[in-house]
C-alpha cells in the first residue's frame, strides 16, 4: 500500500459527497436544489465560485432540465455530476431513462427521501427503487465515509469502457445527509491516478460527425436493450475490480455483499443502507444471548450482485429476514421480492420473513429490530403497525 498523508475532517454526508465530486473534477455540474440534498449542490457551487473547482456549473429551473443538461454535456464527452432527491428525482424520470439507454456515464447522488402527499422530507428508499428498472447502476451506502468513497468509485465504474452507464449513489436523507461523522479524505494525487481522464467513445465530435438518439426501428431497438443489459452485467465485475483498486490506495474494503457474523448464522438478515448497520447492533445483542444470527448488507441493487448467489449457496442459514425501507403496494417489500426471486433461481426454498421498517423516516432502533428478528412468525411484518 502506498504511504500517504491522511487527512481527516468532520463533515455531514452531504459535504462528504461534494468533497468527493470536487476530487473527480467534473467538467459540468447541472443541478437543482431539493431537501435533503441541497447542501451537496450548495457546497459544490461554493467550490466553483471560489475557483477551487473548475467546473461549468449550470443553474437550471428544474430537475428535468438538470438531467437534460447532463445528457447534453455527456453526449459531448464531458464528465458530469448532478444530485437530487425524492420529487426532484421523479421529475427527471424521463431523462433518467434516456441517460442509460444513451450509455452516458453520468454520476448522480440521490439523497433518499419519502414521497408526498403527506409532505415528508425524511429517509425512504422508494425514490431510487422506483427507478430500479431505469438502467442505472445503483449503490446504497451506510456511512458518511462510504458515501464519499462510493462517489469516488462511481466515476470510475460509470466511465469504464466496458460499462459506460449512468451511476447513482444513494445516501439516506438526514440519517446520512445531515449527520456529521469523521471522514478520511483521499489524497488528490492518488485519486487522479485512480480515475483516468473521461473518454466517451460515442461522444459527438466535429471531426467525425454523427447523430445520437434518432429513430430506431424494431429490428434494432431490442439490440440496444440487449447490449445495455450486457454492460450492466459486466459492471458487476468492473465494480468488484474498482473496489479492489480503491482498497489499494485507501485500505478501505467495500464489496457488493458486506457480511457481518454470517459464517455460522442460522438466521441471515438481509438489508441495505443504515438499517443494515443498526441490524448489526441488534445482531451483537442476540449473539450474546446465544442466537446464531448474521447480517448481510447489499451495497448495490443494480446490477444485482452475483456475489449474493455465491454467498447464499455457501452459507448455512436456514431462515432469511429481509428489511425493506421501500414498498411496492399490492406486491411486497421491494428488496424482499428481489431476494426471493434469487433464492428461487438457486433452488433454495427456505423460510423468508419480510420486515417493512423505516418508511418516511420512521425511527428504527436496534432494540426494536431485535424483537422483530426474534419473532418466529414468517411472512410480512410492518414495524409499528
Amino acid at each position, binding site marked *: 500500500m502506498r504511504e500517504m498523508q491522511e487527512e481527516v475532517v*468532520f463533515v455531514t454526508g452531504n459535504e462528504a459527497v461534494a468533497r468527493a465530486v470536487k476530487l473527480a473534477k467534473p467538467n459540468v455540474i447541472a443541478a437543482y436544489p431539493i431537501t*435533503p440534498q441541497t447542501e451537496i449542490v450548495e457546497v459544490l457551487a461554493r467550490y466553483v465560485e471560489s475557483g477551487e473547482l473548475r467546473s461549468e456549473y449550470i443553474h437550471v429551473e428544474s430537475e428535468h432540465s438538470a438531467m437534460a443538461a447532463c445528457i447534453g454535456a455527456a453526449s459531448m464527452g464531458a464528465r458530469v455530476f448532478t444530485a437530487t432527491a425524492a420529487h426532484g428525482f421523479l421529475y427527471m424520470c424521463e431523462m433518467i431513462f434516456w441517460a442509460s439507454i444513451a450509455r452516458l456515464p453520468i454520476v448522480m447522488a440521490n439523497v433518499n427521501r419519502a414521497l408526498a402527499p403527506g409532505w415528508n*422530507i*425524511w429517509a425512504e428508499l422508494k425514490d431510487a427503487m422506483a427507478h430500479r428498472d431505469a438502467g442505472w447502476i445503483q449503490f446504497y451506502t451506510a456511512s458518511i465515509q462510504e458515501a464519499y468513497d462510493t462517489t469516488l468509485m462511481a466515476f470510475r465504474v460509470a466511465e469504464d469502457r466496458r460499462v459506460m452507464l449512468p451511476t447513482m449513489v444513494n445516501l*439516506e436523507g*438526514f*440519517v*446520512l445527509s*445531515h*449527520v*456529521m*461523522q*469523521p471522514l478520511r479524505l483521499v489524497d488528490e494525487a492518488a485519486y487522479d491516478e485512480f480515475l483516468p481522464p473521461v473518454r466517451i467513445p460515442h461522444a459527438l465530435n466535429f471531426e467525425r460527425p454523427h447523430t445520437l438518439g434518432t429513430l430506431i426501428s424494431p429490428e434494432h431497438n431490442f439490440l440496444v436493450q440487449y447490449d445495455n443489459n450486457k454492460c450492466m452485467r459486466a459492471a458487476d465485475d468492473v465494480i*468488484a475490480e474498482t473496489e*479492489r483498486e480503491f482498497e489499494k490506495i485507501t485500505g478501505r*474494503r*467495500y*464489496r*457488493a*455483499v*458486506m*457480511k*457481518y*457474523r*454470517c*459464517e*455460522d448464522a442460522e438466521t441471515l438478515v438481509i438489508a441495505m443502507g*443504515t*438499517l443494515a*448497520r*443498526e441490524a*448489526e*447492533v441488534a445482531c*451483537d445483542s442476540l*449473539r*450474546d444471548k446465544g442466537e446464531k444470527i448474521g447480517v448481510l448488507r447489499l451495497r448495490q441493487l443494480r446490477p444485482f450482485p452475483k*456475489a449474493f448467489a455465491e*454467498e447464499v449457496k455457501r452459507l448455512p442459514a436456514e431462515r432469511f429476514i429481509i428489511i425493506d425501507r421501500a414498498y411496492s403496494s399490492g406486491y411486497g417489500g421491494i428488496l424482499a421480492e428481489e431476494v426471493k426471486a434469487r433464492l428461487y433461481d438457486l433452488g433454495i426454498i427456505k423460510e423468508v420473513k419480510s420486515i417493512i421498517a423505516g418508511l418516511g423516516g420512521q*425511527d*428504527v*432502533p*436496534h432494540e426494536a429490530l431485535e424483537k422483530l428478528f426474534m419473532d418466529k412468525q414468517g411472512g410480512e411484518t410492518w414495524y409499528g403497525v
Partner: protein
Amino acid sequence: MVWSVSAKEAASESDAVRAGTRRVIEIRLHSRGGQGGVTAAKMLAVAAFLEGKYSTASSFYGAERRGAPTVSFTRISDHEIRKYSQIRRPDCVIVMDPTVIDAVDVTEGLKPGGKLLINTENNIDADKFEDYEVYTVNATKISLDFDLKVAGAPVLNVPIVGAVAKMGIVRLDAVRGAILKMFPNEKNVAAAEVAYKMAAML
C-alpha cells in the same frame, strides 16, 4: 470477494461492551431554535473526535424556527458508531434553555445516575432531579458578558460546551481545539473556559 467481520472479531467487541471497556456516551441537547443547540452537538462531537474517539452529531429535523424547542444529539464511542436511530436512553442531557423544562420532559429516558446540565441563573430544585448528577451553569450571562450574540440574541453553544468539559465528558483542551476549528476566535475559547470554571455540581 466479500468483506467479512469474523465471529471472533465481533465477539471480542461484545466482550468489550460487557467488560465496560467500550465506552459509549449518548448525549441529548434541548434548546430553542436560534440558541446554537445543533452547533453545540457538533462542537461536542468534534471535541471527542479530536480526542481520538468516534463521534456523530445530529438533530431531529422538523419545522425548525427561531424559538421553538429543538433536540440535538451527540454520540461518542471508542469504536465505529453503527447506530443511526434516535437516542432514547441518553447518558447525559443538556438543557440550554431552562424554559424548555416546562414544555418537555427533559429527563425522559435519562439513565439513572445520568448527568444533567442546566443553563440557569436561578437555583435548581435538586429534589426534582435526585436520580441524576446535576450540574448548572449560567451560560446566558457568560454569553452576554463576552458579547456572543447573533441577531441580538445570546448564543449559548460555546459556554455550554465548556461546561460539558467540567462534567468529564470531553476534555477542556479538546473543547478548545473544537472551538478553534469551528469558530477560530480567542473570545469564544475564553467564554468556554469561564463556563468550565463556573459550572458546578449541585
